[in-house]
C-alpha cells in the first residue's frame, strides 16, 4: 500500500523538461510492448508513466528501469496518445543528476541555462587562481609551449585532485542512488558483490548490444560506440601524456604513436558527435526532445574535441592566440570530467550502477 501525495512541482518539472503531455497517457501498455528492452515482468515504461502522471517522485528517482532504458524512442513513436515516454525517462534521468548532486548547487547550475555563466565562471576563476599561484597567469613569449603557461605539475596535480574530488562527491550521490534502488525493490535481494555484478554487465558495456535492438534509430549505436571508444582512447592518451610529462620528454612529436592515437580518437569523436548532433537537430521525430542538459553535454564534448585539435595545431603552427585556446580547452575539460556527476555525462556512472544493481537482483532485459 502506497500513500498517495502527488508532487505537483516534480510533475511540472518533468513536463517542462520532457515537453511531454504525459498526463494524456491512458495506460494501454503499447510502450512496454514495443520497447525492445523492457523485461517480461514489470516492464517499463508504462508503469513509470502513471507514476509520473501521479507525481510519484519517490518511485521514479532511484528507479532501476529508468536507467535500463536506452532512449531508443520506439515507445514514443508508437504511443497512441503521443506522450513520448522516452523523453519522460530522459527527463527523469536529468532530474536524477540534480537530485543526487553533492553539493546540490552544482546539480542545479549545470542543468539550467540561466546558471550557465556561473558554471563557466567556476573553472575560469579556479584555473586562474591556480595559474596565479603557479605564477604563470600571463601569456608567455616565444614558441608555443603550453607548459610555460600551465606547468605540467600544476596542471596534472590540480586537475587530478579536482577530478578525484568530484568523483568522490559523485560516489556519495551514487551510494544514495544505490540505497534508493534497493528501497524501490523491497522484494528483491541483491546477490553477489559489486565487482562480480559489474563483470557480469561488462559485455553489454563493451559491445552496446542493447543499442542494436533499437528499431527507430539505426545510427545511434554506431555514433555512441564511436564517442564511447574515442573518449576512452583519449583518456588513455591523456594518461600516457601525464606519464610522459613526468618521466620523459613532453610534448610528443606529431608522428609519435600516442599522438596518432589521440588524433584517431579525435576523428572518432567528431564523427560520433556529428551524427548525434545532426540527429538531434534534424530527426526530432525519432530522437525526441532535446533538452538543455542534452545540448550542454554534447556541445561541451564537441568543443572539447575541437579545441583539443585546434590547440594541437596551434602548437605546431605557433598561433599567437594558442594560449587563449588552451585556456578554453581546459574549461571544456573541466565541463566534461570535473563536472561529470552533475551533467549528462553522469549517465555513464548512474547507468553502470543501475545495470550492476539490475544484475544483482537478476532483472534481465528482454
Amino acid at each position: 500500500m502506497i500513500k498517495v501525495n502527488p508532487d505537483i512541482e516534480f510533475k511540472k518539472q518533468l513536463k517542462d523538461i520532457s515537453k511531454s503531455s504525459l498526463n494524456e497517457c491512458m495506460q494501454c501498455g503499447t510502450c512496454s510492448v514495443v520497447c525492445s528492452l523492457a523485461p517480461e515482468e514489470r516492464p517499463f515504461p508504462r508503469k513509470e508513466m502513471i507514476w509520473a502522471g501521479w507525481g510519484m517522485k519517490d518511485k521514479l528517482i532511484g528507479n532501476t528501469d529508468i536507467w535500463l532504458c536506452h532512449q531508443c524512442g520506439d515507445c514514443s513513436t508508437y504511443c497512441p496518445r503521443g506522450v513520448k515516454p522516452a523523453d519522460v525517462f530522459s527527463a527523469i534521468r536529468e532530474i536524477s543528476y540534480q537530485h543526487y548532486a553533492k553539493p546540490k548547487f552544482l546539480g542545479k547550475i549545470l542543468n539550467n541555462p540561466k546558471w550557465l555563466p556561473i558554471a563557466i565562471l567556476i573553472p575560469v576563476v579556479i584555473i586562474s587562481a591556480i595559474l596565479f599561484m603557479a605564477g604563470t597567469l600571463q601569456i608567455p613569449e616565444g614558441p608555443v609551449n603550453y607548459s610555460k603557461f600551465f606547468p605540467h605539475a600544476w596542471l596534472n596535480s590540480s586537475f587530478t585532485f579536482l577530478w578525484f574530488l568530484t568523483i568522490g562527491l559523485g560516489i556519495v550521490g551514487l551510494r544514495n542512488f544505490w540505497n534508493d534502488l534497493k528501497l524501490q525493490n523491497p522484494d528483491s535481494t541483491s546477490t553477489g558483490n559489486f565487482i562480480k555484478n559489474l563483470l557480469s554487465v561488462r559485455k553489454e558495456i563493451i559491445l552496446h548490444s542493447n543499442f542494436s535492438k533499437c528499431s527507430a534509430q539505426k545510427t545511434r549505436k554506431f555514433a555512441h560506440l564511436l564517442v564511447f571508444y574515442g573518449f576512452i582512447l583519449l583518456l588513455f592518451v591523456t594518461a600516457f601524456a601525464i606519464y610522459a610529462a613526468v618521466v620523459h620528454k613532453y610534448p610528443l612529436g606529431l608522428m609519435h604513436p600516442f599522438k596518432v592515437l589521440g588524433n584517431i580518437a579525435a576523428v572518432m569523436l567528431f564523427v560520433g558527435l556529428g551524427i548525434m548532433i545532426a540527429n538531434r537537430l534534424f530527426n526530432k521525430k525519432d530522437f525526441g526532445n532535446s533538452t538543455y542538459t542534452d545540448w550542454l553535454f554534447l556541445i561541451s564534448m564537441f568543443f572539447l574535441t575541437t579545441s583539443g585539435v585546434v590547440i594541437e595545431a596551434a602548437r605546431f603552427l605557433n598561433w599567437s592566440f594558442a594560449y587563449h585556446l588552451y585556456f578554453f580547452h581546459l574549461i571544456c575539460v573541466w565541463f566534461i570530467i570535473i563536472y561529470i556527476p552533475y551533467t549528462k555525462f553522469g549517465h555513464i556512472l548512474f547507468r553502470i550502477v543501475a545495470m550492476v544493481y539490475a544484475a544483482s537482483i537478476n532483472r534481465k532485459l528482454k
Partner: protein
Amino acid sequence: MNIKPVLVIGGGISGVTSAVEIAEVGKEVILIEKNPYLGGNVVKFNNYFPKLCPPTCGLEINFRRIKQNPRIKYFTSTEVIEVTGEKGDFKVKMKTKPQYIKNNCTACGKCAEVCPEERPNEFNYGFTNTKAAYLPHEMAFPYKFQIDDEFCKKEACNKCVEACEYNAIDLSAKEEISEIEVSSIIIATGWKNYDASKIENLNYSNSQNIITNVEFERFIASNGLNENKLLRLSDNTEPKKIAFVQCAGSRDENHLPYCSAVCCSASLKHALTIQELYPEAEVKIFYIDMRVAGRNEDFLVKVQENKNIELVKGKVGKISETENNNLILEAEDILSGKKIKYEAEMAILATGIVPSDIKFDLNKDQNQFITDLQKDGIIPVACSRKPMDVSSSVKDATAAAVKAIQIS
C-alpha cells in the same frame, strides 16, 4: 403550394430509416445510394449486438416499407456531386453510374451464367470473386443484377446481352447527371472502416490470418466466405485460438484520435458468435477500456461469464507471424504488470469508424465528421456526424426525420 421532397443521401440503415420514417408521415422522399444496393455497411454484417440477430431481418421490413410506399423514390449507384440553394429550395446535382442492367431484370441469373469475366467481390471485401455480371448478394434490394464495367468487356463480349431473355441489358449505357429540387437534405453517408494496413506494428498487410472486424463478419456469415464456418485463409483450417485486438487504429493519435464507439461491443459479439459455433475455441480480447454503454453491460457480463473468453486489459503493441502462420500477439497485461505473448491462430483487428468521403462542401470537425454547423436544412445524421452503433444510428435517423419535415 408545391412542397418539394426531402433528399436523403446514403441508403444504409440510417438513410433507409430516415426515408421510411419521413414517407410514413406522408411526405415525399428521394433516397440515393452510391452502391447498387441499399443497406450500406450493415447488410454485410453477420449479426447485431447484443441480440446476435441478423441485420437483414430489420432490413427486410424496411425494404417492404419502401416497396409499398409510393412516396419514396430511390436511386442506387448514385452520388451527389453538388448542392446549391437554400432550405426549402435546394438544387442537387447527382451522378448515376451507367445502368447496364435495366430495371426489367428479373434476376433470373442467365447473364452471370454466361459471363466469362470475374471481379473481386466488394461485398466480401474482395476475398471472393463474382462474375462481372453479378447479383450483389441474395438479399439485394433492388433485387437485380449488376455489371461491373471495370471488368466487363462490353460489346466485345456481348454474351450476357444474347443470354438475357428479357432484353434487360444495355452495354452502351452511359453515366447520367441529373438535377433535383428538394426542401431539405439528410446526410446519411455513414462510414467506412479504418485502413488496417496503416497500423504497421499490427502486421495486417503481411499475414492472411490477421483480418479486420468487418472482414470477420464476412468470414463467418452464413452468406459469407464459408457459410457459417470460420476458416483461416492460410490453410483453410478452423482456428481454435482467436484473439481480438481492440482499438486497432482508434484512440490513437497516429491513426484515429477518437474512440469509434462500436468496436468493443462488436468484438464481444464476435467472441460470442465464435463460441456459438465452436464452444471449445479459446478467445482472448485485448482492450484498453471496455466501452459498452448502458444496458449492453449485460452483454459484457455474458462474455465475462464465458470461461473460454478472456478479457485482457492491455493494448496489443505488436503482432508477428510464426512459421505455421500462427500469430504472436504481444501486450502488457496491465493489471498483473506482465508482458504477454499469446499465440493465436487468428487475430481480428477491431478497426474503427472513419466518416465516408463526401463530394460536396460541408463543415467538418477536426476528425472529418460533419458538424451540426451547416446551412439550415442540411441535417447530418448517425455515423456521418460521429461514431455510433446501429441502434443509436436508427434513433438519430428518426430524429433527423423530424427536422426534415419541419422544412417545407
